[in-house]
């Protein structure tokens, strides 16, 4: 039990190395970043269709950014944070229950880890896709196709890297060979 709790803590530490950024943008979203913020400018330049927005009579994306960030972007990031944290912690716990009773057997569980990681990547992809093209969120309509792909790429980057670092540090010591490069960690860690 002590080892599991230790794994969870290591996992959370791994998550938080880069994961703070996703928490930061989620908090920023719910508090409405405001028209002059950097993030609104970035979205206006790279994600949203300025032409469509301006044709409707708005000066730019900043004018309607509030509903985009406080609903769509907040909900999407919150969902992704929950999924990422659950998958990371889940793997850290499950790794303690893997039946590794012989040397070299841990490597077999690399397949399991790869499957879990692939499912996780698929979930991140699917969740971002759903939010950016769903009819539930009117704000999604201003997103361009290239903007949608950029958002998917960014989501993968922001959530897969913390997940990997989380499982890298949080996987049970005897199962580290199942996680890419985890066996390179110092033995006492």
């Amino acid at each position, binding site marked *: 039990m002590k080892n599991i709790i230790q794994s969870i803590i290591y996992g959370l530490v791994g998550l938080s190395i880069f994961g703070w950024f996703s928490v930061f943008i989620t908090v920023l979203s719910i508090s409405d970043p405001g028209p002059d913020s950097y993030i609104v400018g970035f979205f206006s330049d790279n994600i949203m269709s300025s032409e*469509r927005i301006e044709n*409707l*009579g708005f000066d730019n994306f900043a004018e309607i950014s509030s509903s985009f960030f406080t609903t769509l972007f907040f909900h999407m990031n919150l969902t992704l944070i929950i999924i990422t944290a659950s998958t990371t912690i889940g793997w850290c716990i499950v790794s303690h229950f893997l039946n590794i009773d012989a040397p070299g057997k841990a490597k077999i569980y690399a397949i399991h880890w790869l499957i879990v990681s692939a499912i996780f990547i698929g979930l991140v992809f699917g969740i971002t896709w759903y939010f950016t093209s769903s009819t539930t969120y009117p704000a999604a309509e201003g997103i361009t196709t290239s903007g949608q792909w950029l958002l998917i790429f960014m989501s993968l980057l922001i959530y897969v890297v913390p997940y990997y670092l989380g499982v890298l540090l949080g996987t049970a010591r005897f199962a580290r060979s199942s996680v890419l490069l985890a066996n390179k960690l110092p033995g006492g860690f």
Partner: protein
Amino acid sequence: MVIRFVSFLCCFFIFFGISYAKEDCNPEFQLAKFPSIGQVDSESEDKPVFIYFDKSLSMQGYTKDQPGVNNLYINVIDDLQQIAENVGNKTFYHEFGKSIKPIKENKISQVIKPIFYECTDAASECNNQESKIHLPFKIAKANPDGTYIIVTDLFLSSKQLVGGTLNQLTKPLKSILKKGKSVGIIGVMSSFNGTIYDIPKREGGTVSYTEAQKRPFYIIIIGDQKEINQIKKNLEEQHFTDPEDKFKFSLITSTPILQNLNEKKLITEKYIKNISNADSFRFDYSDQGLPVYKFETNKKRKLNFSINNNEIIVQGSTGVSDFNINEKLWVSQETKCKKINWKKSKFETISQWSQTDNKLAVQLFKEVSLKKLFRGMRYFYLGEIYAQKPGTISEETFREWSIRPSDAEEFKEGNPVEFKTLNLEKIIRILNSVANDEFQPTLIASIALDFNLTK
């Protein structure tokens, strides 16, 4: 206690009823004024009617019966005099050919007899194949209060339709139309038993033809649309009841638009197909007389607004060949009236129109599809439909009875029983072009859509 409760309920519902009724929060815009369409009907008590009979020799054939063929000329002209007396309080009769002369009262009845068209002057003076049709137009220009009826075969040579001679016709016509008057042309196919003169030959010169058994004559009426229609209606009811009787009607007017549909609040919810099925649908007229369709819709809805041609186009007129829709669209992120914040969109062409024989169909949001708009927002659309350019319906109506000078000789050589009118289509085209010059783009209808775009 019960009474108090009922009173409370009444007050509650009245309050909310008023709140709901005040949900109108349209953006600010200047609605185009309804134009004063229609006829300048002079209500003068002293309204003379002038009737002009073409005395050219070619007209004589109408007065002689052709066995087995209905002679409408005699019947119509006989009755026309009676109809004219009803339209105005005093009727003046004239004959025209080389010049205009009044017809003595005792000779009026002779216009349906061959003797009236015989030339009794010296041969050199008897050039009564020449028809100075522009003269009645000139008189109509000078005295626009009267109604002018011209009875003619409208057989005009090409030389009468060019240069200065043409100007003599178009100039007064322009002035007449400017004063809000119109020109009605009723063509009647009648029996004919005589000679048609001045048929142009291909190599030059003219030839005559005596074999025709039928030939159209024309009654040209210059006056108010109301009077023209009255005369046409009377003739139609009394003489053109037999399906075999061929008659055509065309109205040359600078105002082929019948009315503005907003003025009498003629637009109803049915003008947009299936719109009443939309969620939260309401249809009201604003204080400015603007019909407003309010509803909630998804992006799949088709918004087709259509108007029957007979509601907007004067029957028998050239019609309208081009329409223009002045469109504006406002968008608000907030849908509730309290927080509404309209932004005017940059879209200029939002809808597309098409016209069939029966109706004008406007496909709203065809150019800028609803798919291009954002859900969750409120939209206010204002469309003002203008008649932009007159049509050519009347030319098409008379095309069948028209013959071009270059084809006249060949046509004659075919020994036709039913003879056509020289340059008729060209004459109508000339008259129409004068009317078109005077045409002003006219507002037909204005509509507004106030809708929320949902999932």
